[in-house]
């Protein structure tokens, strides 16, 4: 006897968080069939749709399938009822950001646009307080824009590291909560027989094995590349992903210049390899983001309507890229009156991107990564080809 305990409040929350049409579903299962990523056994998203309608919060929040969905949106396009399963699964993912956030009251701030003023006030207040610390805010002179003469680089780095440490701690706590929830330590383990006559039996090889396999899929965007209706997502996301990584590498490069090679003046010339890397990163990130924003706004609606959480993340990342490149441009142009205020705005935006990563859509990186590992462990994502390798 299965006892169903519907959580009505949860249904309403999902509807507010991007799954507004979930009640239209009549369980025909077109979505499960049309989905290019759904496995044959207990395919998604049909089962998630009825769990969502019934308010089965526990089941949904412990279901890593929601992260095996990449919102290609084939399901929403072909749904005969306009129930938009792609958007409903996105809403459930948004809910997991809150559910597994640490501390939860901060996670709550990301669940509704009503809290947006708080989210923007926090970095502004922190930045203001930060600049009050003696020696942080400098008074730049001369016609050239040198950001290091405006705010002390070392102070920025220390602050960045503190924020980074906070992010890592809360992210790990969230990661652990989700790890427990999906049953990574107790769930089924995928076993596959390798070799022609089943001579060797391969059991999933523990954390690092799964981690490595999941990482390979993430780096290659294997699952994204399976999208049928919205192939743009694969390329656009790939651009954003690698753009972000290149920018990260160029940041590390800049730090290395300062502390390993003793470069004081960080305004690198355009031909510098670190700068080139950074600029390519910008182009990839900006191009990918523009593509995503364009498709998400396009009238056909085939890319899916973004939820508030999507917009929060998309807009922030987009603005980080734009303010970043404008900073570079105003530095090259020597426009001091634009460059320095822009730097402050950029810092606020970067803070929102990084410090909020465990709570905002950015968190999908870790939850999805974990779902990939779970799928590798249980054999859920292993196709026939992979099993026979």
């Amino acid at each position, binding site marked *: 006897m299965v006892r169903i305990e519907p959580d009505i409040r949860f249904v309403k929350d999902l509807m507010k968080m991007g799954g507004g049409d979930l009640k239209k579903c009549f369980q*025909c*299962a077109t979505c499960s069939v049309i989905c290019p990523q759904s*496995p044959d056994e*207990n*395919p998604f998203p049909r089962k998630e749709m009825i769990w969502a309608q019934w308010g089965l919060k526990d089941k949904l929040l412990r279901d890593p399938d929601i992260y095996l969905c990449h919102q290609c949106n084939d399901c929403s396009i*072909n749904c005969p009822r306009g129930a938009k399963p792609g958007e409903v699964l996105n809403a459930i993912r948004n809910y997991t950001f809150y559910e597994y956030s640490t501390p939860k009251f901060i996670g709550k701030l990301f669940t509704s646009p009503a809290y947006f003023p708080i989210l923007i006030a926090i970095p502004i207040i922190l930045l203001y307080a930060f600049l009050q610390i003696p020696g942080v805010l400098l008074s730049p002179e001369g016609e050239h824009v040198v950001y290091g003469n405006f705010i002390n680089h070392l102070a920025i780095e220390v602050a960045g590291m503190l924020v980074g440490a906070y992010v890592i701690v809360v992210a790990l706590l969230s990661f652990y909560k989700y790890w427990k929830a999906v049953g990574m330590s107790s769930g089924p383990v995928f076993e596959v027989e390798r070799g022609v006559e089943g001579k060797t039996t391969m059991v999933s090889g523990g954390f690092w094995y799964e981690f490595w396999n999941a990482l390979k899929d993430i780096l290659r965007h294997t699952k994204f590349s399976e999208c049928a209706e919205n192939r743009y997502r694969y390329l656009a996301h790939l651009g954003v992903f690698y753009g972000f990584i290149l920018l990260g590498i160029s940041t590390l490069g800049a730090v290395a210049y300062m502390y390993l090679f003793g470069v004081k003046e960080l305004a690198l010339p355009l031909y510098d390899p670190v700068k080139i890397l950074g600029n390519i990163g910008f182009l990839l990130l900006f191009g990918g983001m523009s593509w995503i924003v364009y498709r998400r706004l396009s009238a056909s609606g085939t890319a899916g309507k973004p939820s508030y959480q999507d917009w929060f993340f998309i807009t922030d990342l987009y603005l980080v890229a734009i303010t970043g490149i404008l900073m570079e441009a105003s530095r090259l142009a020597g426009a001091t009156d634009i460059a320095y205020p822009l730097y402050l705005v950029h810092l606020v935006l970067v803070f929102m991107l990084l410090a909020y990563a465990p709570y905002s859509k950015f968190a999908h990186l870790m939850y999805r990564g974990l779902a990939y590992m779970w799928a590798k462990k249980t054999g859920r994502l292993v196709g026939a080809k992979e099993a026979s390798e």
Partner: protein
Amino acid sequence: MRESIPSGQLSGNILVIGGGIAGLSAALEASEAGYDVFVIDRNPYLGGRVAQLYKYFPKLCPPYCGLEILFRRIRSNPKIKFLTMSEVVDVSGSAGNFDVTVKINPRYVDIAKCTACGECVEVCPVERPNEFNYGMDTTKAIYLPHDLAFPMKYVIDGSVCKKDECAKCVQTCKYDAIDLSMEPKTITIKAESIVVATGWKPYDATKLTNLGFGKYQNVITNVMMERLASFNGPTKGKIVRPSDGKEPSTVAFVQCAGSRDENHLPYCSAICCLASMKQATYLREQLPDSKAYIFYIDIRTPGRYEDFYTQVKEDENIVFIKGKVAKVEEGENGNLIVVAENTLTGEKTRTEVEMVVLATGMQPELSDINLPIKDLKLDSYGFATFDVPGIYAAGVARGPSDVASSVEESTAAALKGIQAAKR
């Protein structure tokens, strides 16, 4: 009275648009109550979609059981007049005093003279797709619409006939019945009320891109299955698949192919569940070793039709799978793989079958034909909604329905028509 091509102005009490089972029923009820009725139909024959069925509900008798009775009543009733190959081009006036302009397209065969001997067909060099059999075979440019056509008269497809260039049929016809110089004619009919019984057409299955119709030969529609099973169909009643003429040992019926789907027909077409179950029995009766799979979202068998469902379910070789087919893929040797999620077990099923029948829904003709009656109100799907004084809809023009309810509605429309004519 038999059909003849009139000229000038005619008048009657009631004009019925559409000579299918609904229109004929309405016309007969009204004429047998003593009113003068005109029936006009676009086709060269009467009987509409029902004439194309193999068997129909509720009794599962061949359509000519019912239609033949209607035709006999028409023959013996001087108050009913019909025009085939005719279309309404204009309607003016109001209840009690309509002027209906009708365009009569040329048949090129004189109905009074043709004896349906068929010698013309022998000499005709031109072939055309046979729309009566949904294009599964061909006829000559001069053809009998079908074996039991009423009126039993030949007709020439003017769009393909080479006319005077050829004219072999004209020379062959012993009765001098063929006149290739016929022109369209326009006449006016005065009527006091109008019954709209324009019926339906099968939804265009090529729009269901994921189901493979038009791409894979062995994916057919339910209306095609009726023709395949009919003794006067393209295969003389043998259920075989189009690609190689093989008797299919496995057939998948795909329910809601375009129905209950806001990307296609948002409504339930009401009859397709029963039609597929009926067709599964055709298959099982003709090929006892065969197996039918019916993929459905919900089985809808209203009222007493539930008994039929119960009866069909008893056959263990008719398998019901709850889950909509959302993909049809090509298998080997012309076979097909239908993919669905069995929502009762949560498994994606890939069923290899030798033929697929799409249960396409009913699309109202009114959604397309732009009937020139400005007072006629249609809903967003193209079905007639509320009656307006003097104009009454019946049958599938009103909404998806089976034959029995269409006939009942037609009787109601006939009474309404009589009331308007009486005023």
